[in-house]
Each structure stands twice: as structure tokens, then as C-alpha cells.
């Protein structure tokens, strides 16, 4: 009889590979920027990718891992954006990197507080009702921001210091992804996943499901708030209508296309969905149309049995060539 041996808790090889990738991607971007290949326009796209990545990975925590459909993620982003912008504009005298970091943290914390305020009553609800209440919440935030003259109302909040750089956005992307990955591979993450699998069994196994739902919600809101802050300090001007239902849906689509509860998938889907429309700029009037057709097409294909067989084969092939596979003890 073979002796059973358990996998290492954290795979060191994999960790080093990821760190290596993080550094290499950053180095490539920096090199291309200084060589002048990445101009202002491309830089903007890269920052947008970073902002979307933070939003998608954070939403993945609630919708992917916790399994609770949320349709108001952009609302948290809005709160973060306005709170961070308000701080930056009020305390212009604080020297730059500190002011920006404090602003982002304030944005994140404010969004987190909003997440708690909505989360506590909302989490009594199940399934679609939670989705609907978060939708309502997102709309409420948008309308309130529209009516507040002190932060510009419908005209937009202008004059926010434009201090977001690729580096700062990239750092927060890494922080978000690492946080979510490490959280998920811990007792807290297991508790969150168990809730999405079976709430009743999870509770019967001693998990305080209300606490964990609120925790996931709060963390997701926090990072959405940070993303909002980065966005505000990149654009220099923010308008409430940017953070409406359509933005929430855009984030959700990236989560779903990437495969819920998969960080790698989410990252790929986010990059693809953010960059593709930019490449098709010449066809800009058909952009929404193509987006819509792609959405429907992907969903239909995903559940086509022929495609599923193909996917299964692809997975088996990947497993075969997986360099991290443990050696079978024969």
C-alpha cells in the first residue's frame, strides 16, 4: 500500500513563478514606456486595465467565491472615487505620494462602510433578491451623488489632482490579487467558499455565515473603493453617471466570462474585454453591438455540449503538460 502524502500548503515553485511574472510584466511595461513605444494613449489603456482588474478581482470575492450575485459594485467604486477625490482636493498641501495613498485608503474605507451599511440588512436576502437590493443601492448612490452640488452634481467633480501612474495602479492590482488569493486559501476563504456551496451544511459545520458574508462584502467594497480612487485620480474629473448600472454589469460580465471563482480567468477576461474595444476603435459605432453579440455568443457556446466536450479535452491536455504536477508514486 502506498503511503499517502499531502501536497505542501503553499507551492513554492508556483509562488516564485508568480513573483517572477509580476516583476517581468512591470519591467517590460517600464522598458516600453521609456523607449517611447507605450505612449500616453496606451498608458491610459493600461491604467484602465488595472482599475478594472481591481474591480473584477474584488467582485469575484462576493460573486465568484461567496456565490452572491451583486449588481451594484459600481456604487462602491463611486463612493471610493468621490471620497478619495474630496480628500485630495481638500488637503492639497499634503506632499504627493502620501496624500494619494491616504486618499485611496479613505476611499476604500468609506466604500467598506457603505458595504457594511447595505450588507447587514441585505444579507438576510437570498439569491436574486440580494442582486436586486444591490442594484437598488447602486442607483440610490448614483442619484444622491447627482444631487450633491458640493461635489459637482451632474456636471461632474472637477480638478482632482491627476496623480495616478501605471506604477501606482499596478501596485494596487498586485495587492488586491495577492490579498484575495491568500485569503481564499485559508480558513476564512474555505468558510466563504463553503457558503456558496451549501449554506445549511456550512452553518451546521460551525461557520458563522452572516459574519463571513459581511466580511466578503466589506473586503470587496473596500477594493472597489480603492479602484474608484485610482480612477478619480487618473481622470481628474468624475461624473455620477459613470458609476451606474452599466458599469456594475461590465464588471460582472468580466467575472462571469473569466469563470466565477477563478482569479486567472478573471485576469484574462478583464484584459481581453478592456483592450479589445480599444483595438476596434475604427468601428466604434458597432462596438456595443459587437459587445452584445459576443456576450450572448459566449454564453450560448459555453453551454453547447459540443463545446463542453472540447473544453474537457483541453483541460485533460493541460493537466498532462502541467509542469506543477506531482509525481505519481508508483
Amino acid at each position, binding site marked *: 500500500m502506498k503511503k499517502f502524502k499531502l501536497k505542501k500548503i503553499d507551492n513554492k515553485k508556483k509562488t516564485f513563478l508568480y513573483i517572477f511574472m509580476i516583476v517581468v510584466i512591470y519591467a517590460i511595461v517600464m522598458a516600453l514606456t521609456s523607449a517611447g513605444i507605450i505612449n500616453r494613449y496606451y498608458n491610459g489603456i493600461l491604467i484602465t486595465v488595472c482599475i478594472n482588474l481591481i474591480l473584477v478581482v474584488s467582485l469575484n470575492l462576493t*460573486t465568484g467565491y461567496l456565490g452572491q*450575485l451583486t449588481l451594484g459594485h459600481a456604487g462602491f467604486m463611486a463612493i471610493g472615487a468621490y471620497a478619495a477625490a474630496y480628500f485630495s482636493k481638500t488637503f492639497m498641501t499634503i506632499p504627493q505620494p502620501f496624500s494619494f495613498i491616504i486618499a485611496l485608503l479613505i476611499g476604500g474605507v468609506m466604500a467598506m462602510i457603505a458595504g457594511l451599511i*447595505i450588507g447587514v*440588512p*441585505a444579507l*438576510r*436576502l*437570498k*439569491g*436574486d*433578491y440580494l*442582486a*436586486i*437590493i444591490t*442594484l*437598488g*443601492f447602486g*442607483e*440610490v448612490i448614483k*442619484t*444622491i451623488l*447627482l*444631487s450633491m452640488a458640493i461635489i459637482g452634481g451632474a456636471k461632474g467633480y472637477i480638478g482632482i489632482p491627476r496623480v495616478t501612474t501605471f506604477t501606482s495602479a499596478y501596485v494596487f492590482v498586485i495587492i488586491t490579487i495577492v490579498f484575495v488569493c491568500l485569503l481564499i486559501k485559508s480558513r476564512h476563504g474555505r468558510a466563504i467558499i463553503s457558503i456558496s456551496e451549501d449554506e*445549511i451544511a456550512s452553518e451546521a459545520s460551525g461557520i458563522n455565515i452572516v459574519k463571513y458574508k459581511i466580511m466578503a462584502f466589506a473586503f470587496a467594497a473596500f477594493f472597489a473603493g480603492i479602484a474608484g480612487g485610482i480612477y478619480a485620480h487618473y481622470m481628474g474629473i468624475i461624473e455620477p453617471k459613470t458609476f451606474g*448600472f452599466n458599469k456594475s*454589469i461590465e464588471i*460582472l*460580465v468580466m467575472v*462571469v466570462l473569466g469563470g*466565477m471563482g477563478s482569479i486567472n480567468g478573471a485576469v484574462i477576461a478583464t484584459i481581453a474585454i478592456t483592450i479589445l474595444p480599444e483595438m476596434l476603435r475604427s468601428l466604434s*459605432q*458597432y462596438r*456595443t*453591438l459587437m*459587445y*452584445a*453579440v*459576443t*456576450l*450572448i455568443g459566449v*454564453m*450560448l457556446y*459555453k*453551454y*453547447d455540449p459540443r463545446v463542453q466536450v472540447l473544453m474537457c479535452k483541453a483541460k485533460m491536455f493541460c493537466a498532462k503538460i502541467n509542469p506543477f504536477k506531482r509525481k505519481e508514486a508508483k
Partner: protein
Amino acid sequence: MELFLMQLLNGINIGAIYALIALGYTMVYGIAKLINFAHGEIIMVGSYTMFICIATFDLPVVLSIIITILACALLGVVIEKLAYKPLRNASRISLLITAIGMSYLLQSVFQLIFSANSKTFPQVINVSNVEIFNVTVSGNQIVTLFVAIFLMIVLDLFVRKTKTGKSMRAVSEDSGAAQLMGINVNRTISITFSIGSALAAVAGILYSSSYPLINPFMGSTIGIKAFTAAVIGGIGIIPGAVLGGFILGIIESLSKAYISSQLYDAIVFSTLILTLVFKPSGLLAKHKKEKV
């Protein structure tokens, strides 16, 4: 007092329209467990169809209305067959994304054809105003209310008394069991979509008669409001949609007049949030406990 009555009337007017649309949401949700985000776009399509029939082809009003209703009913069925039916066993979230994709698709197609600019909807309801207790009730309001109530009664009788109505209720209870009892589930779902879309077409005509500027994006705002109404009343429950529609219309209209012309949307959605906090499945829902 007169102002209040006038606003109340406005509220009932828009509430009746919300109720008609909410019925579509609620029936589709009941039977397919799908938040049909493309439902709002049916209203938009209905308004444009009516607009083309009258402004471009100069058809008589009654014929235009019939064409509009048929076109929307057909569109509803086609959407279901093309986009939702293949996903019936897929996860709910995939279905939701498909519905959203459908909504974007209709918006962008209409934007490409008619441009994003608003068009003026022709006057189709020619009923003179009536004066009651010093308050002018417009012909539009009278027609809207009567049409809406008439359709609700017809729908109620249809669902309760006819064989098709009974099979609709059976499928929404348990589609698997309904199928085993010999009910043609696909046909029932198609009928549900066509009825819901027909109601949306009527709602579109009524809405555009009261607010005669139409554009390709008009459906999403009304759609979300009407959906909110359906949830407030208890989604999946037909009387709930009617109740929710009127409640929402009246709250919206009164808060627009008395509280803030900017914050009324926030009040509408706060109503939704508060309703769900105190009645987690809507006003008329019966509480169901999960079996362990």
C-alpha cells in the same frame, strides 16, 4: 389639495404603466426564474414600431396598435427561443448575462437604425380632458388607466380560468412535474413570453403617449423601475406586480412634487430596499423555508 390630486393622478398614470410592464417581468420570472433584462427594450421596440407605423407608413391607429402588439409578442418569443431556451439548464447567472446582452443588442441595433437622437412620438390617443373636482384629468390618463385595468382583469381571468393559464401556473410551480403531467413546457414558456411582451408593447404605446420623446435607451430606465415594482409586490406573483406598479408610480410622482425633483429616484429605490429589508420576498409573498 388640487396639486396633491393632480400628482396622485400622475402617479396612478405612470403606476398603471409600470404595472403592465411589471406583469411581464413577474410572469417571465415565475416561469423561467429569469430576470429578463431585455424586457425593458421590448417597450422601446414597441414605441418605435408604433412610431414607424404612424409617422412613416401613415397607417390607421388601431391597425398600428395591432401590428405593434403582434411584433413585440413575436420578438419576445424569438428572443426566448434564440437566447434563453438553449440555456435552460445553465447557471442562473449565465442566463442573466445573456438577458443583459440581449438588452444591449436591441439598444445598439435601434441606435444604428434610428440614431441616438430622440424622436417625437405622434399623438395617438385623442380623448378630451375631463374636469373632476377642479382637477383636469387628461384623456391620456383616462385611457391609460382603463386600458391597464382592462388588461389586468383579462390576464387574471386568463391565468386562473383557461387551460393554458393553468399550465402556466403549473410550469412556474414545478416545470419538471408539469412536463410529466403532459404539459408542453416549451409552448407554455413561449406563450408566457408573448403575453408579457404584448403587455410591454401596450405599455410602450401608453408611456410614449404621455411622455412623447422616444429614444433607443428609453427602455432601460422604465424597465428597471417596473422590475423594481415587480419585486416590491413580490416577484412571480401577478397581483403583486399590479400593487407594486401603482405603489411605485404614486411614490415617484409624489416625491418628485413634494420632496425633490432630483432625489426622487433615490426615494424610489430606497422604497425597494426598505421593502426587501422588512419583507424579504416582497409585499404579497408567502414565506417559504428551505427544506433541510
